[in-house]
């Protein structure tokens, strides 16, 4: 009995001393960039022996968790406005850009064969256009045989940053959508089927013949779903891929974006994908522990610099170098422990 007790104490001491050396970093939020964050945390553990836990619980939950201080950083696809950031003493900076793509399951239609414009897309998702062989769709796709079948709309059943990006785009291209449905992490869906998270939507589109839905690009590639081309602001039909996401990202004017508030939907540029989004990291300006704050910022710095290739492999667009310099400069200015600066860029 005593031996066991001693052994137990020894183990406890060993574990707790180990824990105090390598404090892990905890984050939670958006599921949109989660495929990249998963690889980053693994690689970072291998390279720097620091453990990062990221829970992909959704943007809203990420914001709630950082506000209630249960995590070291939050992640969100929906940027917070400068006023809200200041109110809670938070800083926000962009981590990745990526595309929300429209996927469809129509018999006989190949990948990127179908073309739609934003207004038609809004009409489909509001249930105004109910059949694939509707004159508007047919006239946009002359030369493509479109089957006469009902459209099954698939959307997110849970609140989601992906939905926010998607409905933000629909609001910009369709006044009617803005008036009747609006833009939000979840909205009043008048048509269709709800799927749980990105994989749920991908799955339902796969299951339902004649289905159309929206997911983050990686999930469409993973599920081998057919994407469709969209008409962008310049009036050109574009395929969703990393090039068209990059083109949309290049048009962003970060210098004049207070709190890095940036929405990349319906951006100018002949090659720009119209439904591009930015995903953000949120953390407190006033940190409690200098060592922990430094290790957190070191991790983000590593993500920006060493993580870019991984992000590109997973079809996300890394943040441009000039913007990284801007962000790291603002860390140096804004993030403090007891009034002392933590980061020297």
């Amino acid at each position, binding site marked *: 009995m005593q031996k066991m007790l001693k052994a137990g104490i020894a183990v406890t001491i060993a574990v707790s001393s180990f824990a105090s050396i390598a404090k892990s970093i905890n984050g939670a939020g958006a599921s949109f960039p989660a495929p990249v964050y998963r690889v980053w945390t693994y690689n970072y553990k291998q390279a720097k022996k620091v453990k990062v836990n990221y829970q992909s*619980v*959704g*943007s*809203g*939950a990420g914001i*709630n968790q950082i506000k209630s201080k249960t995590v070291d950083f939050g992640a969100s696809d929906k940027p917070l406005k400068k006023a809200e950031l200041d109110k809670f003493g938070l800083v926000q900076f962009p981590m990745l850009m990526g595309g929300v793509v429209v996927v469809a399951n129509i018999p006989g239609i190949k990948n990127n064969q179908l073309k739609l414009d934003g207004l038609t897309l809004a009409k489909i998702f509001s249930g105004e256009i109910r059949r694939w062989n509707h004159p508007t769709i047919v006239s946009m796709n002359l030369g493509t045989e479109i089957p006469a079948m*009902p459209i*099954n709309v698939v959307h997110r*059943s*849970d*609140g*989601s940053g992906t939905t926010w990006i998607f409905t933000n785009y629909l609001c910009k291209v369709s006044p009617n959508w803005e008036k009747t*449905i*609006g*833009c*939000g*992490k*979840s*909205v*009043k*869906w008048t*048509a*269709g*089927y*709800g*799927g*749980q998270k990105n994989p749920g939507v991908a*799955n*339902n589109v796969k*299951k*339902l013949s004649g289905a159309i839905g929206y997911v983050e690009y990686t999930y469409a590639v993973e599920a081998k779903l057919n994407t469709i081309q969209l008409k962008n602001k310049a009036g050109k039909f574009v395929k969703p891929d990393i090039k068209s996401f990059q083109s949309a990202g290049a048009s962003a004017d970060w210098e004049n974006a207070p709190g890095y508030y940036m929405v990349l939907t319906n951006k100018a540029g002949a090659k720009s994908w119209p439904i591009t989004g930015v995903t953000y990291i949120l953390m407190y300006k006033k940190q409690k522990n200098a060592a922990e704050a430094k290790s957190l910022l070191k991790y983000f710095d590593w993500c920006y610099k060493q993580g870019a290739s991984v992000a590109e492999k997973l079809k996300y667009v890394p943040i441009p170098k000039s913007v990284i310099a801007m962000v790291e400069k603002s860390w140096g200015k804004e993030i403090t422990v007891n009034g002392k600066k933590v980061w020297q860029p």
Partner: protein
Amino acid sequence: MATLKKQLINPEKFDKVFKSLCAGSALLVSLLMAGLFIQLVYYALPAIRTFGFKFLISSEWDPVNNIYGALPAISGTLLTTAIALIIAVPISFIVAMYLVESASPKLSTPISFALDLLAAVPSIIYGMWGLFIFVPFMQKFFKSLFGIDYSGFGFLTGGIILAFMILPFICAIMRDVFKLVPSVTKEAAFGAGSTHWEVSYDISMKYGAKGLLGAVFLGLGRAVGETMAVLFVIGNVQNVPKSLFGRGTTIAATLANNFSEAEGILKSSLFELGLILLVMSLGVQVLGQLWLNRVSRQMGEK
């Protein structure tokens, strides 16, 4: 250590300690229940104040303008539960009766074993099975047999999956209830010339009425609150059911879908939905108890 042992073994003291321990545990259960109820009411208050009684009868669900109504979720819950019970209760009754009354032990032992195993399968498994196998099956079944374009997602599919889920559960309890019927009573009835059906219906069923009803209510309780198995196949739109093939949602599915992202009045509305679910379960319990009392009065018990 030794004195402690002595003190514990001292029967009078031991009894006292044991008694207060039991009373404390029992009290804890009721405290938990009361606490849960108070907390739900507390968090639901903003929604109750904002929407009032209209919350219960409105089918509006608009997260952008923050207007919420519970009718789609409540009606969806009632419909799927009704479908599940209509299918599951008669079948489990017949199966349980067969297992106890007429099956040979060689057959009834393995079936019983399988039944217990099925009753222990986590509901998410039923949900996954529903999504990957049952939804496509329903699609093809209705298309080829009746020519109906049913997507496979909707109340009917949700209700049937719930039925599969609660069937082994209800059946296992019913079987145990039937087993409790004294064989002397049954043998007496057989001796008086009763048929198998008469013995089952007049003796076993009436003897075990309470237990059988209890089984139904346990199944009902499980069906009302079931989340994952339904969420995968119900369609997840805030629609009031118009047909069995329609798509909609249930209270539990609405909660699971929206809770992690919810804030403000939406969160409060979700708490009110939870409160409604709790009250519904309570109502079922009370109704069940009333009915049991009536049944036992009719049978001349007190």
